[in-house]
């Protein structure tokens, strides 16, 4: 680190443990399918995508409709934005709607401020 200097032993350990992986290690990683058998890489295996994210009320309510979802559709949209990128649902923040989340500092309390985007 360049701006913080580890002074005690714990600081040195913290620095070691949080050392970002060297570029070559990042390059060496690959996307693997879950059904390829035992982990192909020794590191913790973090699945991509949102299918592992627990989001209650995501799909349908107990009647099979969407009226009684425990989280509103806007929250679902935001989950797609944060948890994974799902282009069909999330506005294009690079070009079309760069400020889409600007009023949403913390999703838990500010999700109401995320507006719908109309083309």
């Amino acid at each position, binding site marked *: *680190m*360049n*701006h*913080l*200097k*580890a*002074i*005690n*032993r*714990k*600081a040195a*350990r*913290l*620095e070691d443990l*949080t050392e*970002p992986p060297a570029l070559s290690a990042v390059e060496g990683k690959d996307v693997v399918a879950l059904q390829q058998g035992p982990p192909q890489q020794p590191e913790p295996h973090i699945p991509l995508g949102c299918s592992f994210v627990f989001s209650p009320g995501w799909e349908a309510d107990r009647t099979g409709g969407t009226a009684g979802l425990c989280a509103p559709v806007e929250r679902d949209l935001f989950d797609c934005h944060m948890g994974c990128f799902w282009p069909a649902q999330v506005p294009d923040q690079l070009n079309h709607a760069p400020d889409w989340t600007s009023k949403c*500092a*913390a999703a838990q309390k500010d999700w109401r401020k995320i507006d719908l985007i109309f083309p």
Partner: protein
Amino acid sequence: MSILGLREFHRFEAAGQPFVYLVPSAAVFALDEVSDAVLGLLRDGDRRHEEVMAAMSRFDSAVVADTVAELIRVRAIGERIPDPPRPRLLPMIPLSTMVLNVTNKCNLACTYCYEYGEDKIVDTENGKKPKFMSEATARDAVDFMLKESGASPRAHLTFFGGETLLNFPVLRSTVAYARERAAALGKIVDFSLTTNATLLRPEIVEFLIENEVGVTVSIDGPKEMQDKFRVFHNGAGSYDEVMPKVRDLLQKHRGRPIGARVTLTRQTLDVSRIFRHLTEEIGFTEVGFAPVTTAGGRDYAIGDEGFDHLLAQFQELAQDFLRAAVAHRHHGFSNVKETIEEIHKGVSKAYPCGAGLGLMGVATDGDVNLCHRFAGSDAHKFGTVRDGVDRDAQRRFLESHHLDDKTDCRTCWARPLCSGGCYHEAHTRYGTTTSPNLHYCEWIRGWTDTCLQVYGEIAVRNPAYLRIFDEAPMEKVS
């Protein structure tokens, strides 16, 4: 973009330079100008990442981005979300220190004594507990210690009392027995004892030297302070009786540093005078001070102003220590030394001390207790030396005394080192070992801040000094 806010840390300055002590990791980092400026900005409130960049425009933007990334990395700043509950690891570690109460009898009658005084826990009168530990029980205790020390090659045995030397015959035979048993098992046992020094005789001193027994002398300082509370049963002061014997011990016993352990009361709060007397005039290598343990309202209890006064005196002596450390000289103020050792190692405690973990006390009848201060207390019993540690009782104790359960401590930056403070203090003051010692929070924070400054300054001016802490220390018993 993310919102950045301060996480938990304590900022301090030493040698004209800013540092942070991170909580709960207990890591110490020195800050540069940019990192200190970022922390200063966020002190006024949370900011969006780009607002931080804009406010820091006087620095190169790549440098600011780099700094922010480093501060996030060590968790000095970040999104202010509560830490997820940590898994409650119950550290069932082997026994490393056994404190053996070879007697609960004493030839002094110190007014403030936690074993005999107004706030005693265990009724040792009326034959409820044997006055002296028998040789058979002491042997069982040694076997217990060696067994419970598990795979560890070293165990530490401390003799305690009462006045330990009242039961010198058992003490002597126990040392011999422990040596013999340890040798058979390929282990090493360290010995130490605490004494009021009234009963030291040349042959006892010989024995202590021969067996490399570390000695701590309970002593309160110059005559008028020593004689204030450390009195015989007839009320006579013990200074004149003790001093020639202490001098003799210090002169002969050169193998291990001999420490003085001073109890501070409202009436004897002259730290620097006590320190100078005990080191320069008497010759102790180390002096440790402990405020008296008492229920509130006792005549000798140290009140809030007393603690402020005490802090000022400790700070003055800590400056002395600092000058010595920078010059690579020994200084015997053990309170500061022990704290900066913990700072250096980055100790972050879930429990205030080793009691009930690697340290246990053994009462005269062989009951195993939380620590020596609870020796003989049925409410704080973890088995017996004959039956071994009652793991269920130990587990119950550890489950109910974890730092996470002390809500008062949750926002305190000094909690990695304090962890709520001494169980015995809490029991005496609040009637339960689960309570944090709220009566000295200000004092603890003030003192920890002082020690951080001393540590920071040593780290800048003479980092080589800190290498003395890279060897394993022994559990302290007070």
